């Protein structure tokens, strides 16, 4: 299980290769499916183009919530391996914000567990995004939906 925060830009694919290699042969051959989600920073266009994001979080609570979300996911689906990594700090367009992945015997569990990881982080983990725009303005991103706790 790979859970954590990255303070610098990182590539998702080597992390996923690492998670695959971390399984022993029996575990790996018991898996028939992995679903992986990679969220990246969108830039937008024009004067509202976002040139930079600041990703604030609540150190201590964040790690606790990511660990709980992973454990909850494992209790709901038969998961053999799991990745849940989130970026913090200053982020540039195209950089990875989140990697969530679940390995399972069958595709239904892998898809459902991966989707659950992504939604749970979005609604429960204490991260806040502040956008810095091309026109020099900055604003905290408004939540699309009230947090589900």
């Amino acid at each position, binding site marked *: 299980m790979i859970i954590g925060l990255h303070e610098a830009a990182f590539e998702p694919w080597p992390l996923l290769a690492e998670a695959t290699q971390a399984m022993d042969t029996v575990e790996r051959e018991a898996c028939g499916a992995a679903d992986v989600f990679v969220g990246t920073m969108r830039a937008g266009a024009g004067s509202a183009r976002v040139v930079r994001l600041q*990703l604030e979080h609540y150190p201590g609570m964040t790690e606790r919530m990511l660990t709980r979300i992973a454990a909850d996911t494992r209790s709901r689906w038969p998961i053999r391996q799991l990745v849940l990594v989130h970026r913090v700090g200053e982020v540039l367009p195209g950089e990875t914000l*989140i990697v969530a992945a679940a390995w399972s015997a069958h595709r239904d569990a892998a898809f459902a567990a991966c989707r659950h990881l*992504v939604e749970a982080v*979005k609604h429960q983990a204490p*991260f806040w995004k502040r956008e810095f725009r091309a026109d020099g303005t900055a604003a905290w991103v*408004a*939540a699309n939906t009230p947090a589900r706790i």
Partner: protein
Amino acid sequence: MITVRFFAGLREQLGRDTLELPATDTCVREVWARATDGAPMPTHLLAAVNLEYADFDASVADGDEVAFFPPVTGGAA
């Protein structure tokens, strides 16, 4: 002592990051009132006690850390 923390837009609005209140047995709502000099609670305000989400009626005691923050906006588009 009770440690009070504010995050993100809320930290900027209030112009404060962390403060300490004298210890008394109290609740989250009362901590907010004391830490903000009675400011009204924003809509969708969230709170945590000792790194766990908490109701505004949750009790708070000496040594606790109480955090207030706006709805979270991490993750993907």
